[in-house]
């Protein structure tokens, strides 16, 4: 009985960790991704630890599980808060349609409009793009290879 419960907890925790990972890949902006990464991660890890505590049994195992969960609860929100604040100040783009009560409260760096990091766009512009020259270029078309190159360099 204990084994079945422990196995269930382990599988559930692993499933939540998997969903958190999918969230990091799927969600559209840095702040949304953080929701999935940091906190569903805590729940997933907590459930897996509880499963491990059940499987091993004994006060020794539970003490360790309790301490690990305690440290997770204390440290994760701080790193998440620091990352979120840094992302905001660094100018990480917000998903269009987000309300922004922080506008004007915190200084915010600007990133070029298509969301690529400036340094990547510069890097792409320095590279030759021969395929584009063969095509009839629409007005403003020359600016495109740089931006698409910059985009491909950033995880989307």
């Amino acid at each position, binding site marked *: 009985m204990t084994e079945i419960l422990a196995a269930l907890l382990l599988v559930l925790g692993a499933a939540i960790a998997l969903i958190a990972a999918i969230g990091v890949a799927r*969600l559209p902006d840095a702040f949304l991704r953080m929701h999935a990464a940091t906190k569903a991660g805590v729940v997933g890890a907590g459930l897996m630890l509880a499963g491990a505590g059940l499987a091993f049994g004994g006060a020794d195992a539970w003490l360790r599980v309790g301490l690990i969960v305690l440290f997770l609860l204390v440290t994760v*929100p701080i790193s998440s808060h620091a990352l979120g604040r840094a992302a905001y100040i660094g100018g990480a783009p917000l998903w269009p349609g987000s309300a922004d009560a*922080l506008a004007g409260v915190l200084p915010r760096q600007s990133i070029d409009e298509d969301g690529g990091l400036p340094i990547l766009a510069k890097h792409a512009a320095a590279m030759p793009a021969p395929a584009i020259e063969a095509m009839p270029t629409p007005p403003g078309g020359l600016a495109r290879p740089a931006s698409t190159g910059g985009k491909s360099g950033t995880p989307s």
Partner: protein
Amino acid sequence: MKRALAWIRVAVTFIVELGKSTIAVVRAVLGPTERLRPAILAVPLDIRSSAGKVLFANMVTLTPGTTSLDISPDGRILYVHVLDAPDRDAAIADMKATLESRVREVLP
């Protein structure tokens, strides 16, 4: 004794909120992302003690669906990023009613 009970209530509220919002995040991740309405909200704080603010900000961050981003220099407004807030005022009221009122019982 009364204080211990209040702390237990904080813990229970926290675990319930954690469960509810984990489900919300799972749905947000697996559902269509276009329908999400994220927002950065300004939550006015009624907590006055620093320890209470830290506890509240950490609990807000730990419950998936909300992340505290910044606190105003005078410590009266907490800026929170919300995963999905179709109704902003309701989201703020909800945070204040569940988490903040419990925290105020232990750390005013």
